[in-house]
């Protein structure tokens, strides 16, 4: 019991969301490991967690992993930044100008829904095997969540709030800064969470097709060499990065928009 007489909630119960989530991850790897007590293990076709973790440790200590990640980070940053700028501009324009919205909505929807990955070879042919080609693949995959979320955000701006600011003597600039931007921002953050995952796919796909270094290339190469422990180790690294990025955005969202908590 705490001093004020409220019964203490046990640690596990307070953190059960995190605890259960972690438990599932641990069980998954445990089951994977345990499966080979019954099934024959052939390292040419599959790997198992202890080998993967050893491989990961190997790649980290040798500096290989970090190097590949740094190489891959360059087109990622270019492509993703371009997606933010272009996506948000197009999305806001579509939301603000009704005719632009009507005109572009079907086209953008088609692109968003289609497997753009299929265009990757073509992009490489057009823009080469360097950073540019990969950045464009990443851009193509991650721009649409920004377009559609900015579009939705602008359309969701509450007309009443516009009237409130107008009636209190607000100018166009005030409308923009005090109503539209704060309304749209959370939509953009939500879009960024989706876009990060798609951008990472872009990194891998781009490097599968044409690269001599980078994390995607490493996965493909280890696969070709039947070094499946290291291949899985690289995949695991990408997964961890994806989780850290999306969770990081989620955390930043909660910190930046306290008014959305509980909505």
């Amino acid at each position: 019991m705490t001093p004020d007489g409220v019964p203490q909630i046990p640690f596990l119960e307070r953190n059960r969301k995190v605890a259960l989530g972690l438990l599932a991850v641990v069980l998954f790897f445990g089951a994977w490991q345990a499966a080979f007590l019954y099934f024959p293990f052939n390292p040419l076709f599959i790997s198992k967690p202890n080998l993967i973790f050893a491989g990961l440790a190997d790649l980290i200590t040798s500096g290989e992993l970090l190097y590949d990640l740094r190489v891959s980070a360059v087109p990622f940053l270019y492509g993703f930044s371009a997606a933010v700028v272009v996506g948000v501009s197009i999305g806001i324009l579509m939301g603000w100008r009704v005719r632009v919205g009507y005109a572009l909505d079907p086209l953008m929807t088609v692109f968003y829904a289609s497997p753009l990955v299929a265009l990757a070879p073509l992009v490489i042919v057009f823009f080469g095997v360097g950073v540019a080609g990969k950045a464009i693949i990443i851009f193509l995959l991650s721009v649409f969540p920004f377009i559609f979320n900015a579009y939705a955000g602008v359309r969701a701006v509450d007309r009443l709030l516009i009237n409130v600011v107008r009636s209190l003597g607000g100018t166009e600039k005030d409308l923009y800064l005090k109503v539209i931007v704060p309304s749209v921002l959370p939509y953009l953050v939500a879009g960024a969470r989706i876009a990060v995952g798609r951008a990472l796919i872009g990194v891998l796909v781009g490097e599968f097709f044409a690269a001599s270094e980078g994390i995607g290339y490493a996965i493909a190469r280890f696969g070709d060499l039947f070094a499946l422990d290291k291949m899985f180790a690289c995949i695991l690294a990408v997964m961890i990065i994806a989780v850290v990025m999306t969770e990081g955005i989620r955390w930043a969202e909660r910190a930046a928009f306290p008014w959305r908590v509980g909505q």
Partner: protein
Amino acid sequence: MAAYIEARNVNLTFRPPNRAPVRALYGFDIDVREGELLSIVGPSGCGKSTFLNILLGLIKPDSGQISMRGKAISGPGPDRAMVFQEFGLLPWRTVQSNIELGLELKGVPAETRHKVSRELIEMVGLGGFEAHYPHELSGGMKQRVGLARALATDPDVLLMDEPFAALDAQTRDLMQVELLRIWNQARKTMLFVTHQIDEAIYLSDRVLVMTKRPGHAKKIFDIALPRPRDYEMRVTPEFNELKLEIWHALKDEITV
């Protein structure tokens, strides 16, 4: 002598795209006296909210004259402020920051803003909730913020567009009492749009009944009940008689 606020022959037709035009106001006249609390009742869609928006300067009528202190109203101005039915609080701003919005838009320095908002937070009974966000407040509290925000810029006229319609019955009763207290303290001219005859009588010096769409003034009632008013007054014969008279004026306008 011209009235404090004067509207003459105001006409407005809404022309929504792809739909038939709607005549909202037709030959609407009104005279508002300085410092009075005037309620406007009328059937749904009769244009009473539209008229408040015209007074506020957000909508321009097709024709007619509207003036305040003899000066034509052509847009929003610091002499008028509105309390909205759906509150209209910015969800990303705290109570205090919502109340200071109008002052901020006028470029008032932060120190003065805080001083004003502190006073108003006390006045509307929100002490201790300065740092809360709108989603953390009850409906009644939200409208207290709406009221404080409208009062913050110290307007001469307060326009209230069914401000208590989104509240439950008991909260509404309490807010009416609060409003009268604040009206006494702040001494503003108030135009109060409502559907509730009770509410209109209880609060007002005069009640204007509007016709159905296209809306114009049908009849105006003087509410000679003494002030300060209390809750018990609602069950007196005088109150009920007024209620009946207003109801008779209103009922022919209502179609279901």
